[in-house]
């Protein structure tokens, strides 16, 4: 690992995005619009908005970063720049960490905007600190980056990469406790949800929703999400090959 190469990679990824202002606008504004939409969908039942709103603040960054990373990595593969980089003195870890860093920075802005809108404009009632919400959102973004990086290894085209979103993200969305508490699912599904990282992302958000301080459960959730993100990044790095057929 080389910090300078990692930072140069992160700066390059962000620089690429600055030439694509529409993508940045979509990434930053869509979560704000959706959370606003949700607020007025549950206009008559603010308690439901509190419960699902907090969870969604964690899910948005995960989904966005998953999509952005899988497409960005796929582009790097298909444009030949990955092959070129791998003939140069850059480590896989430098490249992956560069990507993770760039997208985490973007996710921080995205999560800050969505959280601020939800808390101060839409009156989302959260017992705990907004900083803890942001922390979970950031880790979720990292998890999304890691998952996106990993699945992009199995996608040969943009079409396939986009299809991995319903394949990888939707089941987690259904089982994470957003629609119904996990302990009320069929025991088999509950067991499955116990091993899916998004469940812990949502659990973590719910802990912040209900408790003033960072509880032991919150710490466990955060550590699990962070661990899964790191594992995903490591697996993603392992799927990058200097020599290809």
């Amino acid at each position, binding site marked *: 690992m*080389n910090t*300078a*190469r990692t930072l*140069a*990679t992160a*700066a*390059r990824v962000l*620089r*690429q995005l600055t*030439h*694509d202002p529409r993508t940045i606008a979509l990434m930053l504004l869509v979560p704000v619009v959706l959370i606003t939409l949700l607020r007025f969908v549950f206009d008559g039942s603010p308690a439901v908005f509190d419960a699902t709103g907090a969870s969604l603040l964690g899910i948005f960054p995960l989904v966005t970063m998953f999509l952005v990373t899988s497409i960005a990595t796929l582009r790097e593969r298909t*444009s*030949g*720049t990955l*092959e*070129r*980089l*791998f*003939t*140069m*003195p*850059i480590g896989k870890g430098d490249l992956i960490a560069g990507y993770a860093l760039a997208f985490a920075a973007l996710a921080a802005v995205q999560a800050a905007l969505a959280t601020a809108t939800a808390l101060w404009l839409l009156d989302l009632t959260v017992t705990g600190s907004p900083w803890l919400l942001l922390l979970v959102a950031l880790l979720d973004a990292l998890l999304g980056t890691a998952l996106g990086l990993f699945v992009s290894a199995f996608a040969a085209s943009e079409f396939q990469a986009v299809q991995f979103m319903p394949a990888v993200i939707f089941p987690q969305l259904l089982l994470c406790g957003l629609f119904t508490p996990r302990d009320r699912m069929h025991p088999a599904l509950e067991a499955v949800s116990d091993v899916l990282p998004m469940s812990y992302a949502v659990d973590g958000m719910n802990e912040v929703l209900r408790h003033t301080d960072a509880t032991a459960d919150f710490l466990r959730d955060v550590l699990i999400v962070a661990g899964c993100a790191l594992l995903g990044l490591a697996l993603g790095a392992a799927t990058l*090959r*200097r*020599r*290809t*057929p």
Partner: protein
Amino acid sequence: MMNKTRPAVPATGPAIQAKALTAVRGTRTVLRGLGFSVPPGRITGLLGPSGCGKSTLLRAIVGTQARTTGTLTVLGRPAGHPALRDRIGYVTQAPSVYDDLTVRQNLDYFAAVLHPGRAHRATRATAVDRALADVDLSDRADALAGNLSGGQRSRVSLAVALLGTPELLVLDEPTVGLDPVLRRDLWDLFHRLAADRGTTILVSSHVMDEAERCHRLLLMRDGRLLADDTPENLRRDHGAPTVEAAFLHLVDTANTQATAAAPAPVQEPR
């Protein structure tokens, strides 16, 4: 230049040496037991029809080709050795640059990969400016790579390969789709690089008239080497006016030998 201890290639030793080099892609054997050597500081042309295995051979040399067997030594080390990564410049057939970055931003990034850190900021700036001047793109430095013409994009790709002053430059069909003036300019650049910077250049092409501009030629067909010689010797040995005619003569001879060696078709007994 950076003050790194680099294992100097002996002036007499080959820059690239292959023995029984074989590569398999899928179920197809693309390279079939190649043996050759590339002299340092010279331009070696790798010529042959499309699909004969040129790109696979180049990828093996830069260390990105999986499933190769045999011996392949590049600048005194096995191909793909980590110590070679800042000594080789590689230009893929399709320009491999970021379309959503400007020309300069592309070069800045790859320069940062080669010479990372604040300490090398001046080195990088010099390298980027020189590479831009080498490929004659200084006036397009702030244009988005994606907005450039095909020929300009492939020159950006070449500029990236020139950044680290590589000892070996591996170019996969760098002149495809370029107009005659640009092609001549690029070949002039290759000759300057070999003469002034002592760069070893291995350049592939399927256009035979480019063969005349090389110091040495490797002629390939169906994953095998047909010839490894200078353009002059090839023309003389085959009594041909051009390298193209010599290549065709070689192919015809190889075909005749193959037909003669094959057993005559036997009638199936009924």
